[in-house]
């Protein structure tokens, strides 16, 4: 029995431990950047190599799932909780993406983080993240998945707040963790319900139970399970109503945004749903909810992305929006297509974020697109790679994003599992906006005249090879990634939904429409932003709407008013001041003072007069005698 999968998972953990101890100030002086780099990049690269090996083994075995038990975590009564790894087509795809994209982002970080005082800590955290992410995608049981699920949340928390000297960064990390925790509570409930129904957390067993229809779902509503798990997914994958943490998460270093908040972690929710697809197949209502939430998230996030001025914020909202697309695909039963989009999105969004990182690096930390422009010639490699990735996300035919997005649109329209024209309509409109805002971002950053401060402009420089090389690689993948036929590869495991027969002949029409939309979005953006006054005029025209959008619909403020403040108020005023201090301690102190006062009254009877005492004694004796006589 080989332990390839275990090694894939544990190598990054080893990297974390080594870098965490040696590369930080814990033992005095940290080791040199070179050693940190070797450990930090060595672990994921080795994991990637092992993943390729495991994938080849999987293929050699005709894609029969590889199960690799590690140890028994716990056993209670007859119920056992095993830690085992599971490699099938789905987890193979995810593992390749995670280790592959993860590795290149590690390499990129060696350049990006060069000279940071916490270099070792950064790579330690990054490796820790990879460990948990691999646990998440390779776990056989929901429990292992959940361990990874919570763990990536922790890594994300640590990395968002990486530069914790600024309290806002640390706050953003906390917000991410808490919001994710809300989702996790839902996830936990879903897990408990599944355990109630099946007595196990092994996902293959659960899926098989649902698929064969023999599941003894003892009074447990499948819809409830599906919705509870989906709550978890909305947290991790930043869907309405729990998406608010992701834009703030951009406080972390840019490679983190690329790896965690674009390429891998945020797609964990999509992976979860695809993993538990049998549950969702049995729960059409929940799937419908998922599709609606997905498309709504895609739409609203895209509207917010239209007006953001921070280069990373635009990309963040774009990520939320793209995740919405994925959930739309999941909701209409096209699980393989959703995973396809996960993969292509990982390529082009990682490329975009890393490109943005390169821009920020070049400008010495500037993130505001209003202070950019004209970078086309100054940082050409970044410019070209960014251009390719922008085209890919905008849906320009032939590039990666086009294929996956087009399939999502098609199934949203025609799937027999909940597709409908209005889903397609909203999604298509969102695709138009996507092309527009990405092109706007691209134009403001690279084209037109320079709006940079003179001091910044003097220092603009192209990034080192460790960064540009990665950008080129990812740009190539963004261009060619669409030719990986992932839905077909996954079809044996995640069958695509049937297409409603009467709609089949619309396919080419819709294809044409979506190509037209992509170009239209690009064209409008270029038309507007090539002449700055034109954009300004439009902005003035729709000022209230603009304010609403740049205020992000004031959702953060709403949550603050509706959730955070009342919770604090209840805790501080009702519970602490009212409950603990007034009622509980108050009644206690009240009792004490009653006792004191009663004692004060009674002590007055002690006058010091012997005669009174004797008299009282006599009265007492007489009373006792009388009572004795009456009751004798």
């Amino acid at each position, binding site marked *: 029995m080989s332990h390839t999968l275990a090694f894939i998972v544990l190598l990054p953990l080893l990297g974390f431990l080594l870098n965490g101890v040696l590369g*930080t*100030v*814990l033992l005095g002086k940290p080791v040199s950047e070179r050693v940190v780099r070797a450990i930090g990049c060595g672990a994921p690269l080795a994991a990637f190599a092992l993943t390729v090996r495991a994938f080849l083994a999987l293929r050699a075995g005709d894609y029969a799932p590889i199960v690799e038990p590690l*140890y*028994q*975590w*716990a*056993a*209670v*009564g007859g*119920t056992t909780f095993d830690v085992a790894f599971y490699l099938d087509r789905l987890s193979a795809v995810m593992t390749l993406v995670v280790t592959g994209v993860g590795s290149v982002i590690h390499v990129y970080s060696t350049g990006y983080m060069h000279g940071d005082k916490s270099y070792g800590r950064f790579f330690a955290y990054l490796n820790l993240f990879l460990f948990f992410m691999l646990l998440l995608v390779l776990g056989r049981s929901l429990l292992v998945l*959940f*361990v990874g699920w*919570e*763990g990536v949340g*922790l890594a994300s*928390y640590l990395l968002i*707040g990486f530069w*914790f*000297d*600024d*309290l806002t960064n*640390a*706050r953003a990390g*906390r917000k991410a*963790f*808490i919001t994710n*925790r*809300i989702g*996790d*509570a839902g996830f*936990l*409930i879903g897990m*408990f*319900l599944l*355990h*109630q129904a099946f007595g196990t957390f092994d996902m293959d067993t659960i899926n098989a139970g649902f698929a064969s229809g023999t599941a003894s779902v*003892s*009074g*447990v509503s499948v819809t409830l399970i599906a919705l509870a798990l989906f709550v978890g997914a909305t947290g991790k994958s930043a869907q309405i109503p729990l998406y608010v943490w992701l834009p703030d998460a951009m406080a972390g270093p840019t490679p983190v945004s690329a790896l965690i908040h674009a390429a891998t972690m945020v797609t964990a929710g999509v992976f979860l749903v695809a993993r538990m697809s049998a549950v969702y197949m049995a729960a059409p209502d929940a799937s419908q909810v998922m599709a609606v939430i997905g498309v709504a998230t895609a739409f609203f996030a895209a509207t917010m992305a239209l007006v953001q001025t921070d280069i990373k914020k635009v990309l963040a909202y774009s990520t939320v929006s793209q995740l919405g697309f994925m959930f739309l695909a999941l909701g209409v039963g096209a699980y393989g297509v959703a995973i396809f989009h996960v993969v292509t999105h990982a390529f082009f969004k990682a490329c975009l974020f890393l490109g943005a990182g390169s821009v920020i690096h070049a400008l010495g930390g500037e993130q505001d697109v209003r202070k950019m422009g004209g970078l086309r010639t100054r940082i050409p490699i970044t410019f070209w790679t960014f251009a390719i990735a922008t085209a890919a996300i905008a849906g320009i035919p032939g590039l990666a994003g086009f294929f996956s997005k087009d399939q999502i649109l098609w199934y949203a329209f025609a799937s027999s599992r909940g597709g409908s024209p209005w889903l397609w309509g909203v999604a298509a409109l969102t695709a138009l906006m996507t092309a527009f805002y990405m092109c706007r971002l691209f134009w403001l950053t690279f084209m037109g005249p320079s709006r940079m401060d003179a001091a910044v402009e003097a220092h603009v420089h192209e990034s080192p090879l460790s960064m540009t090389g990665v950008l080129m690689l990812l740009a190539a993948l963004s261009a060619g990634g669409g030719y990986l036929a992932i839905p077909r590869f996954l079809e044996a495991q995640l069958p695509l939904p049937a297409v409603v027969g009467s709609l089949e002949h619309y396919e080419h029409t819709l294809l044409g429409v979506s190509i037209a939309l992509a170009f239209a979005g690009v064209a409008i953006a270029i038309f507007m932003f090539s002449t700055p006054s034109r954009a300004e005029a439009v902005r003035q025209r729709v000022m209230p709407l603009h304010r609403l959008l740049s205020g992000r619909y004031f959702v953060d403020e709403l949550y603050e008013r509706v959730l955070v403040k009342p*919770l*604090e108020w*209840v*805790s*501080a005023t009702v*519970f*602490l001041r009212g*409950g*603990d201090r007034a*009622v*509980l*301690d108050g009644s*206690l102190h009240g009792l004490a003072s009653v006792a004191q006062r009663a004692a004060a009254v009674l002590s007055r009877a002690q006058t010091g007069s012997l005669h009174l005492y004797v008299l009282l004694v006599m009265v007492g004796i007489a009373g006792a005698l009388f009572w004795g006589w009456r009751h004798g």
Partner: protein
Amino acid sequence: MGDAALLNLMLWLPLVGVGLLLVARGNDLRTRWLTLGVMVAQLVLTAWLYQRFDDTAVALQFSTDAPWIPQWGVQYLVGLDGFNVLLVALTALLGPLVVLGAFRSIDRDVTLFHVMLLLLQFAMMGALLAQDLFLFYVFWEAMLIPMFLIIGIWGGSRRVYATLKFFLFTAFGSILMLAAVIYLVVSLKASGGVSSFAFTDLYQSRLPLDTQSLLLGAFALSFAIKVPMFPLHTWLPDAHVEAPTAGSVILAGVLLKMGTYGFMKLGFPLFPDAARMYTPVLMTLAVVSIVYGACLALVQDDIKKIIAYSSISHLGYVMLGLLSLELIGIQGAIIQMVSHGLVAAGLFLLVGMVYERCHTRQLDEYGGLARLIPVFSVFFMIFTLASVGLPLTSGFTGEFFALLGAFRAAWPAHVAGNSGPLVLAVVAASGVVLGALYMLRFALTFLFGPTKAPHQPLADLSGRERLVLGVLAVAVFALGLFPAGVLRKTEAAARSYQALVLTPRLPGGAP
């Protein structure tokens, strides 16, 4: 020497230590080392017994049974079983760590302090090992006095108020329990003719429901004060805040667990019918404790109070698991007890260490400690995350099983038309969000942001402090990563608890 003799040696060792301290009155350093030696010896003995403990046997192991007051049927009956084995191990583990943790912080009446620590250790061990109600009661009361003195003599500025409150609450509960104990034994003699205080005999008692309810009420009040459960918890924050670090560690680490242990070992199994009848009430109180403790921890400005209120919340999960009467839930409750013992001890030690350096407990006077004292911060983060219940730490194992048990118990009731337990379980599950909320608020202000500390420069942890926290951290991870071995030790006890509480024992019914 037989294992039973070793168990007795282990139990009485602290008392021997007291004798040594009194004889060998010398400089403070010798006192500290001597106490440490005794505690370590006790830990070694416990470790030996722990690994000799046979987890397949239901019966008492390494037991000693000697008559003590034969006229009343009182015995000196001590032994290990699945109920107490983990808590005994926890107590023995915390002993040396407490001594080490207080190495520098106590500089007044050093001998007396260590005598108190040893007496407390003796009483706690005794209460855990006792298998005779009278013996248990004696140890139970004996725990109070050293704790009372530790807070009262070495405590903070409001120590008199805190000690008084602590004493009144616990003494009130104890007196009720004493009355119930006497009543129970007398009625057992009247009905069955047996005059015995042994737990196993008392488990045979058959009492009418209303008597059971009354007695359960008395026991439950006493235990619930110790746990503490809402609304009997207000003594805890005051006691914790005023207590010296060592006091807080023992209080949170072991003493609170005496309450839940009491429920598990005595309260519910002695009066099963009443226990089942009042389960909804108790469960509601447990869930209220979870939420209420968490909410209050959220708005505290005193760093010790945050941890104190978090204890209330965490022990709510223990009660939830115990009340679920599902094997998984019971096991989860036991793990959660140990986990909370480790985590709260670690957090109080950490807070104590920073207090020694800065002399303030106000949260907002700190900031950016991660930059100033990184090793401290790493440990702080580990224990914070364990407290939040992050997977791979002990906190997760306990909470997860307790909640799973609660769900498993609640779902059939829900299907049968009673959704109350399910609502409670869902609320309890949402408690994990609140847990993250207050602990991360604590960590945020404490560790992150611009550096701020009242007494700079701050020295990072010394080797001694790293050792203490390292041991606890290892235990936290061990329980999170490999709970299987520990769960096996307690499984038989959990089963017998479940059987005892689920079997009706009203008079007249079939046995």
